[in-house]
């Protein structure tokens, strides 16, 4: 398949996963706020069903939305044009990856319908819960389907990463030097580079877990377990901590994979509408690669209270705190880029600023969680849930919306309606904060994660848990409003796609190569793109700009 078609295909896959994942999260919220509420045609949500919702929600959102859409979806669509190429390196490999990902999604979505239901061990699948089928409903066939799905996903991701890496390394056009690559491409590059080792390690862990489940091994199972009154012996004295190490070695880079492309795009879009160069461009390249590099060394901060030696905890605390420095550099660059720029506040620009805001808010709770003594209180509370939803889920989704609004003229020859776009933006950011900020408070009050119910429990525990109920109801209502706030976006899509195509080829006066006149041409006789200058070449007053594809001797383009 052509990379453009594949890009749309990946995005369609992610959109399906996004719609499903959002529905699941709304069901979770409704159940938490009103535990007796019966789901129509189903009845009240049982605890194991709630945990199945949790598992599927995490899996769909993290894997199928945030790993596919920013990276392979928009990457396949836009990356080749941005580096001045008309093709990707291995189109067949890219296609194969897509079909594997489709199979993967279908398999995991089939798990609610099999005997036992969905797996209930969360997206992190800690053994022995995930290794022993009798440890819970859904841990039999449901867990096997989850395993198969994620194994296929890992394989597909490695394939797509090989394609993207080779494309960036080999297919840059004449003049597209490494320091002229847009930061978006650097984001894709770093994310692909991270994908390979992390998903390979996940695949290894999944293979070992499969062996424990079906081939009577004991990689992760200690010598003796008593599950449901039945004593099971493992032939080897395995440790569940081994899974945690392997999984989080994958799991932490995974969240950077999810957010790095967005960070790169935000830098470029801020520069575009601020009519400025990205502040400290080359430093930003180094910062992005550094975030990727340090990101491989911080996985232990998910395990501070998991049974690690306290010395290891200290080591991971230092590396986790260290990663706050390049992240802060990135934020400083964004602020400096828009400072005193009188930027054009289009919808894309607003979403980019929204990304910055969410990144700051979500990111500032990171150093708090990186201190083991504080994590001793906050681990697995809703404080952590607030942290990653703000910085990864919301910022990531804002990145996707940003990409859609920004590149819509390129992929559909029309510009999305600005007024509807602004309504969409303001509603979304308001309800995003309204939903996730209170979670910090419930987390500080001690509300744990993965609880199917906060009411009806006796004793001081019950008092502590139910004290958060008023906020729970607020969060649920806010989440529903957040979901409804996406309606203007879909209306916008609908009416824009039905309107006639416009001929404006570069409505944002962008400088990067994908906006060049023949960037997507399929005519073999069309001249090859050439890059002449770095991106974001704007005059000091912002009035004129020099796109990357324009030869230096020609006069500049006015706005």
């Amino acid at each position: 398949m052509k990379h453009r078609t594949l890009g749309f295909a990946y995005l369609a896959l992610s959109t399906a996963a996004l719609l499903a994942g959002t529905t699941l999260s709304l069901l979770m919220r409704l159940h938490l706020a009103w535990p007796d509420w019966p789901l129509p045609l189903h009845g009240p949500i049982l605890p194991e069903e709630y945990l199945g919702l949790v598992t599927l929600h995490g899996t769909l959102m993290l894997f199928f939305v945030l790993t596919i859409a920013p990276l392979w979806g928009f990457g396949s669509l836009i990356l080749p044009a941005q580096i001045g190429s008309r093709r990707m390196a291995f189109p067949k490999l890219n296609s194969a990856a897509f079909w594997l990902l489709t199979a993967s999604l279908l398999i995991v979505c089939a798990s609610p319908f099999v005997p036992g239901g969905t797996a209930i061990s969360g997206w992190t699948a800690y053994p022995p819960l995930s290794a022993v089928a009798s440890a819970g409903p859904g841990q039999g066939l449901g867990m096997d389907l989850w395993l198969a799905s994620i194994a296929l996903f890992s394989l597909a991701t490695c394939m797509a990463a090989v394609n993207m890496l080779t494309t960036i390394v080999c297919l840059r056009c004449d003049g597209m030097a490494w320091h002229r690559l847009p930061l978006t491409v650097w984001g894709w590059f770093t994310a692909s580079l991270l994908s390979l080792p992390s998903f390979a390690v996940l695949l290894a862990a999944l293979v070992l877990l499969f062996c424990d489940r079906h081939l009577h091994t004991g990689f992760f199972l200690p010598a003796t377990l008593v599950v449901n009154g039945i004593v099971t012996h493992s032939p080897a004295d395995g440790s569940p901590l081994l899974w945690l190490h392997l999984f989080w070695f994958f799991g932490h880079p995974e969240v950077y994979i999810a957010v790095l492309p967005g960070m790169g795009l935000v830098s470029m879009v801020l520069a575009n509408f601020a009519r400025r160069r990205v502040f400290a461009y080359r430093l930003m390249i180094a910062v992005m690669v550094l975030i990727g590099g340090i990101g491989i060394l911080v996985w232990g901060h998910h395990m501070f209270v998991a049974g690690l030696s306290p010395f290891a905890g200290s080591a991971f605390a230092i590396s986790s705190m260290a990663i706050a420095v390049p992240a802060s550099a990135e934020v400083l660059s964004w602020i400096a880029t828009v400072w005193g720029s009188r930027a054009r506040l289009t919808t894309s620009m607003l979403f980019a600023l929204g990304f910055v805001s969410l990144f700051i808010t979500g990111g500032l709770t990171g150093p708090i969680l990186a201190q083991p003594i504080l994590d001793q209180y906050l681990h697995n509370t809703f404080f952590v849930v607030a942290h990653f939803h703000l910085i990864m889920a919301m910022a990531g989704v804002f990145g996707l919306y940003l990409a859609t609004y920004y590149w819509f003229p390129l992929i559909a020859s029309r510009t999305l309606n600005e007024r509807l776009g602004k309504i969409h933006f303001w509603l979304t950011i308001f309800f995003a904060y309204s939903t996730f900020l209170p979670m910090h408070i419930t987390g500080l009050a001690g509300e744990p994660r993965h609880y199917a119910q906060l009411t009806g429990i006796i004793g001081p525990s019950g008092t502590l848990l139910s004290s958060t109920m008023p906020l729970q109801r607020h969060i649920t209502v806010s989440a529903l409003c957040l979901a409804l706030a996406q309606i203007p976006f879909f209306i916008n899509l609908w009416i824009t796609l039905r309107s006639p195509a416009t001929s404006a080829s570069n409505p944002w006066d962008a400088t990067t190569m994908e906006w060049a006149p023949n960037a997507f041409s399929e005519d073999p006789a069309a001249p090859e793109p050439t890059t002449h200058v770095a991106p974001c070449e704007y005059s000091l007053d912002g009035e004129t700009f020099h796109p990357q594809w324009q030869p230096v001797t020609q006069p500049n383009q006015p706005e």
Partner: protein
Amino acid sequence: MTHFFQSHGFLVASIWPLPTDAAAHGPALDAQLLLNLWIGLALLALAHILVIVGLAKRRTHTPPRRQALIEFLPLAALAILFAFLATRAEALWETARYTGPSRSALQVEVVGMQFAWYFRYPGPDATFGVAKPELVAPGEGNPVGIDPTDPHSADDFVSSQLVLPAGREVDLRLHSQDVIHGFSVPQMRLKQNAVPGQDIHIHFTPTIPGDYAILCTQLCGLGHYRMTATLRVLPEAAFEVWLTQHSKSGAR
């Protein structure tokens, strides 16, 4: 600064959603947490103000000031701030975790299983008897699997409530029978996973008598949300009474 937060603790505790703090190490932890939260809030406000002001500011046609001022100075300041917070946190972590409990600490074994916590006291001989998984029988009154043939088992007794004396250090030995459970006492600012196959120790000193919540904080199955227990902290004398009562009735 710790002193400020500690002395104004009751004020702050009523504003912030943190539950009451009843452990010896708690106030220092709370002080660090509150410091972090205030700094985070301040940085959040500052960053957003900078963005909004920056967007509103008129565009200048002169090139920006020296890059070092704008990029490296704030970055250095932030790096120093993060290092400062990390160092303070590290000191607290060392105190809590690097060294073991004192020799006079009360020993209690915490056993987690799907979906309950049991607490075993070693009795006057201060030694836990051997416990075997094959002997686990909650229905028979032996949820932990104590081996009756071991001489040290005679004075061990198991309780569903964790009862501790105020003001005395306790060393908890965490075990799990089946899956990973998370032993958490929010009001003692304490959390540690119990991993099957591992023997994990944590120690702390409860200070204020009362009834506190024990929660499971690591997803362990369908009953995860109701795997709760009560920590009851009694004054020293009352604890001795409780202990004698249980030793008599629970001893085999």
